[in-house]
């Protein structure tokens, strides 16, 4: 099968992301990349844990003063749901249903965007209510770096998925872009998994002190 071939729902292969050598390479390469990303976040987590609540004096807010569970819980739900919607999108991709895939991807983007806005609100809240900033203490630096790196990943993921959607809006699905959609959704899942760890390590463990 060639990348330029045209397909119908009947001829569309079961695993379109791995039909061409390019697709196979992309699939594997991206998984490996995520392995590297895992180590990256592991290092950030370790740094955060080492510097958690490390502030110059008692006037600075600590983790237990800062976090509010309802807000973070909503954010978590948004991101988890967006992971689910991207699964639906990939389901339709495999069934050669381009329109539905676009629809579900659109939903994913909206949820991701909502998450991001919530995060911006949250950061803003910490800065203005608690004077907990990137430069106020080592704790602040570590917190914003870890959570901010994740937020940056979310933003990049959104740009990426939107670019893919716009670019292929008129072209429809083929073996050239199927792997691209697939790895973008993999990336989105990864972001989600990282958030689960942030939710646990930063917020839940932060609440208990």
């Amino acid at each position: 099968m060639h990348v330029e071939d045209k397909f119908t729902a009947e001829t569309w292969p079961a695993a379109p992301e791995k039909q061409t050598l390019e697709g196979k390479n992309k699939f594997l390469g991206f998984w490996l990349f995520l392995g590297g990303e895992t180590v990256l976040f592991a290092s950030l987590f370790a740094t955060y844990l080492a510097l958690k609540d490390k502030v110059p004096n008692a006037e600075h807010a600590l983790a237990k003063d800062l976090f509010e569970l309802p807000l973070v819980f909503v954010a978590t739900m948004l991101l988890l749901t967006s992971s689910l919607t991207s699964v639906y999108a990939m389901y339709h991709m495999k069934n050669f249903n381009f329109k539905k895939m676009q629809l579900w991807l659109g939903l994913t983007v909206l949820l991701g965007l909502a998450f991001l806005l919530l995060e911006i609100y949250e950061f803003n809240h910490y800065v203005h209510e608690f004077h907990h900033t990137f430069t106020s203490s080592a704790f602040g630096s570590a917190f914003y770096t870890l959570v901010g790196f994740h937020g940056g990943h979310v933003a990049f993921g959104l740009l990426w998925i939107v670019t893919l959607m716009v670019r292929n809006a008129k072209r429809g699905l083929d073996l050239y872009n199927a792997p691209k959609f697939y790895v973008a959704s993999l990336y989105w899942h990864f972001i989600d998994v990282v958030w689960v760890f942030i939710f646990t390590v930063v917020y839940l463990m932060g609440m208990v002190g």
Partner: protein
Amino acid sequence: MSTYAQKKGFGATLWDYLTTVDHKKIAILYLIAGGLFFVLGGLEAMFIRIQLAVPNNDFVSAGLYNEILTMHGTTMIFLAAMPLLFGFMNAIMPLQIGARDVAFPFVNALGFWLFFFGGIFLNLSWFLGGAPDAGWTSYASLSMASEGHGIDFYALGLQISGAGTLMGGINFLVTIINMRAPGMTYMRMPLFTWSTFVASALILFAFPPLTVGLFLLIFDRMFGSNFFDVANGGNTVIWEHLFWIFGHPEVYILVLPAFGIFSEIFATFSRKRLFGYSSMVFATVLIGFLGFMVWAHHMFTTGLGPIANAIFAVATMAIAVPTGIKIFNWLFTMWGGSIKFTTPMLYAVAFIPSFVGGGVTGVMLASAAADYQYHDSYFVVAHFHYVIVGGVVFGLLAATHFYWPKMFGTMLNEALGKITFWLFLIGFHLTFFIQHFLGLMGMPRRIFTFLPNQGLDAGNLISTIGAFFMAIATLILLINIVITSVKNEKVGNDPWEDGRTLEWAIPSPPPFYNFKQLPLVRGLDPLWIEKMEGKKGMTPAEPIGDIHMPNNSFNPFMISLGLFVAAFGALYREDYNWGVLVLIAGMGITLLSMFVRSVKDDHGFHIHKEDLLNDDDKGGKA
């Protein structure tokens, strides 16, 4: 367009190299850039040795000396040794597994340009207010205290070139996993390919901690964060951990490919298959694995406590076992063989005692309680130069001679090569052997001068004399390269006549599609098997057909250039108003180039069957 229609003329050639995605041309780019940085790092080394030739010398000032020693280490590790190895990996590994290119040709080019721009950025510090001066390890308290922009150049430059290295690592991994020729199972892969595989896996897991460490350094120095600011709750030991979690595997990233190169050379010039192939593979993987468990042996005196020190001491000693297995396997590869002492073989043979010297001092250093004496003394300097020069640089020099005909189609002069070898070998031992004793006699490392009457004078002078031998050897190698390139006497597929692996089955240099027909691999050392059965070349595994090739692209250059520009913005953000604009503009260039890459259709092109058949007279047989 493509390399398919070969154009001549300087402009066209330059454009071809600026846009190439061909692994063989990227290899040449790595070799040229890495070679230049190697010479630069070597000059810095000479300044160091001249300064230390006699006590109380004032050849360079104290501050400048620290810049030189920092740049020597950083350049040699990140900008010379690793790119040169990447050069050989790029040139040879795809040929060894019977692939037409790497898995991601575009990313391959991107990796090179990122490394290149990162390296240039780092070295521009010399002209823009001073180079970094906190050592290649750039320990946080000193790097935070360092004035000027030197450390900023270090952090940003390494960040850019590190990204390129990471991409290269992923690329090689995918290539080896997905693109092996029919019959090339894992346990038939040549050792150089195996070591490329393991080194790439190490890169994948070791570089992210460095990335994080460098980000923290960049944030602290340029954006006001407090990771290493003790007064604000920061902790400098975090840097030491992150750096060495990267730094120790980095040593194996360098030395494993060198092991691979030597394995090829031993087998080739002994006319014997590698002794204990499977245990060699096992040892390589084990060394890679253990490489991640031992980083804290660089921090025995940091005060981590006896439990951590004891654990890391024993773990470190354990690495000696697989390394020993390798040494003995090489010896027994030669045992019973028919050894021909070509230049690459000379390096390989000399590597064994030299590297064993570095290895045994490594075990001595692993003994934590005794390491309190060795740590940060010239003993350590001697140790890692024995490992890195005696292992990696010997490997690079051997590979240069060994693979030169395959890469350029002409042989380096053997007589000059042997002169280089002997001078380099003598110079190497003269320089570094005595440094063990200097360290034990109480000389700390990284000192810009030493006072007389401490018993250190004679040793330092001897060491400096040795360095000149190595400098002369390098000069002769350069002359050799020039002479060889001018003469340009073409050679055939298998110029060493004892080639065993697939790369020697195709023309030198190979056509841009490498294999007209993918070869059928029937065992370890596939070409040797065919030769022993009286055949001239490999049996093809497929009929001649169209070959799909990727298009050239200027995009990798632009993406890297954008980051290069952005780095200046980040650096001068606080000094000048235009800093922020440049930062945004640079990121814009990068993101826009990525966007173009992502949006534009790029299906590559096909070489048609008919053209391949016409190409026969050029000798593209598989």
